[in-house]
């Protein structure tokens, strides 16, 4: 059990409001350095699950352990801090603060995570190193984020998720805004980085073609039950 980066058990969550959506999940775990693709239809609760893992929403029941710590027992502020320290997040698109420079964006999570900042060492140098590893041109570092192409922006988002080497990277359909060629290149870079640092990766997608590159593929319906009631 020591090696689990992520462990969910008996989790249940429902969105409040008129369109009821309930997600129940018995068991789900991610090992250290493991890469998992989570497939599911649109609206099947994938993003909801990722929000639970990140601790921006709290389950009504159950435990969510990250690196051995049950985040459901933490206060809101402590969960935010814990997320900053331990999880790198990549969205589908519009990952970056458009008015900040690339450097600003990459260094942003370190603002909220002193421990992770320490791990990063010389943060600027680490960020620049990640940029060159991810094949971003040198001069991009000081450029405003909104001057970058979509593919470049996604790579900056990867650099931001990786800086300070958190144990877990959560990616919510990060390739869906990219064309097929860029998708492949993007995944190459992502896997290069996660395997180099034994980082676990949980990536969500509705596209089964990506499956072969991951250690494991999980379908949403295999691990979770969804109830919908239209009021």
């Amino acid at each position, binding site marked *: 059990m020591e090696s689990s980066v992520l462990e969910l058990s008996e989790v249940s969550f429902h969105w409040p409001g008129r369109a009821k959506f309930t997600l129940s999940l018995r068991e789900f775990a991610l090992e250290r350095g493991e890469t998992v693709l989570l497939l599911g239809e649109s609206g099947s609760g994938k993003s909801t699950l990722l929000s639970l893992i990140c601790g*921006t929403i709290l389950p009504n029941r159950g435990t969510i352990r990250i690196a051995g710590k049950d985040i459901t027992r933490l206060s809101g502020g402590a969960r935010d801090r814990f997320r900053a320290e331990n999880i790198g997040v990549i969205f589908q698109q519009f990952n970056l603060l458009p008015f900040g420079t690339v450097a600003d964006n990459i260094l942003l999570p370190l603002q909220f995570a002193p421990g992770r900042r320490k791990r990063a060492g010389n943060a600027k140098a680490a960020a620049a190193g990640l940029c060159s590893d991810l094949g971003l041109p040198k001069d991009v570092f000081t450029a405003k984020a909104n001057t970058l192409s979509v593919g470049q922006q996604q790579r900056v988002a990867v650099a931001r998720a990786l800086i300070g080497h958190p144990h877990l990277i959560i990616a919510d359909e990060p390739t869906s805004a990219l064309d097929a060629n860029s998708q492949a290149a993007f995944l190459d870079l992502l896997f290069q980085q996660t395997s180099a640092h034994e980082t676990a990766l949980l990536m969500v997608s509705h596209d089964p073609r990506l499956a072969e590159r991951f250690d494991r593929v999980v379908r949403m319906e295999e691990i979770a039950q969804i109830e919908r009631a239209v009021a």
Partner: protein
Amino acid sequence: MILRLAIASLSARALTVGMTVLAIALSVALYLGVEKVRTGAKASFTDTISGTDLIVGARSGSVQLLLYSVFRIGNATNNVTWDSYQEIAGHPAAEWIVPISLGDSHRQFRVMGTTKDFFEHYKYRKGQPLEMSDGVIMDDLFDAVIGADVAKSLGYTVDSPIVVAHGLASFVEHKDQPFRVSGILAKTGTPVDRTVIVSLEAMEAIHVDWKTGARTPGQSTPADVIRKMDLTPKTVTAALVGVDSPLRTFALQRYVNEYPKEPLLAILPGVALQELWGIVGIAETALLAVSAMVVVTALIGMMATIFSSLNERRREMAIFRAMGARPVTILGLLVIEATMIATAGAGLGLGLLYCGLVVAQPIVDSAFGIWLDIDAPTLREAVVILAVVGAGVIVSLVPAIRAYRMSVADGMMVKT
């Protein structure tokens, strides 16, 4: 870095933010400007006369007495007899006394008969004495000293002739006794600027041929005959009195107010000026209230701007949240933003005020006799600036709390 990002976020919205800053700046400049004019006007007003302990006139209201004796507005209902005047002058508490005799005019300016002592004892702006800008104090019976505004608007210089009209707004002029300008006073910003000053005897001399307001037909006494006549006045309009010790002011005031031979009134000019300002000042207070409302409007405008930016910035807030920012950090970010807008607005407003003052100071001084000081910001102004920034922060809490709620509800997902 968060602060730098906040600034970067603001500059990415430079146009709307700039407009908001400008609106706040203009409103702050307006408010401080009105405040400046108000204090300047009040200071100039209450500094109209200083060094005089009592003003004595026939019994009426204290404001009325102040108005005609100092501001030359309106008329005395009654005069003070020369005997009473002499008796008050002889009171042991009276250190000096200066008579004032009004009633005639030259063009639109009032003519005042007095003694040379007037130039010694009349003080304004914290004890500043009158000064001649040209010529000398009247020496001859038919000499006149004119105020700066009189000289300027009528184009008079030393030695210009003056014809005095009897009564106010009268076209019957005392053509027989032409006066000569002997001196011109330097600008004071007081009603003295708009006064023609002659001697008390000259005031009598003008009226030698006049009985009860109409000219005695066929009579025209030559100047050299008048010079030989006894020109001691029968009455004066009012008198300025200096008291030897402040403690005796009230004793003399009571003596005058209880004077048995005729109903007289003695007022403390400072008190009467305050009383008069209480009436005049209401308009200025209303103006100040209006400009305060303008400041409030500008701040509400800022609130609306922040509010309307919230939706398009949901994404930005979700990114902050995903990176580990707490909802309170989002709230803080918006409050910091508002603080910067309000501070920039207030600072720019202060700058505009000083630019405005540099331009307006000489114009306002010459046009209204109101002196606007250009000093470092006063404590009061600093308080106003701080209040604007503080109000900006408070007002921004409304959209900031909404953003807080949104970021708690949205978490890191934004429905697109």
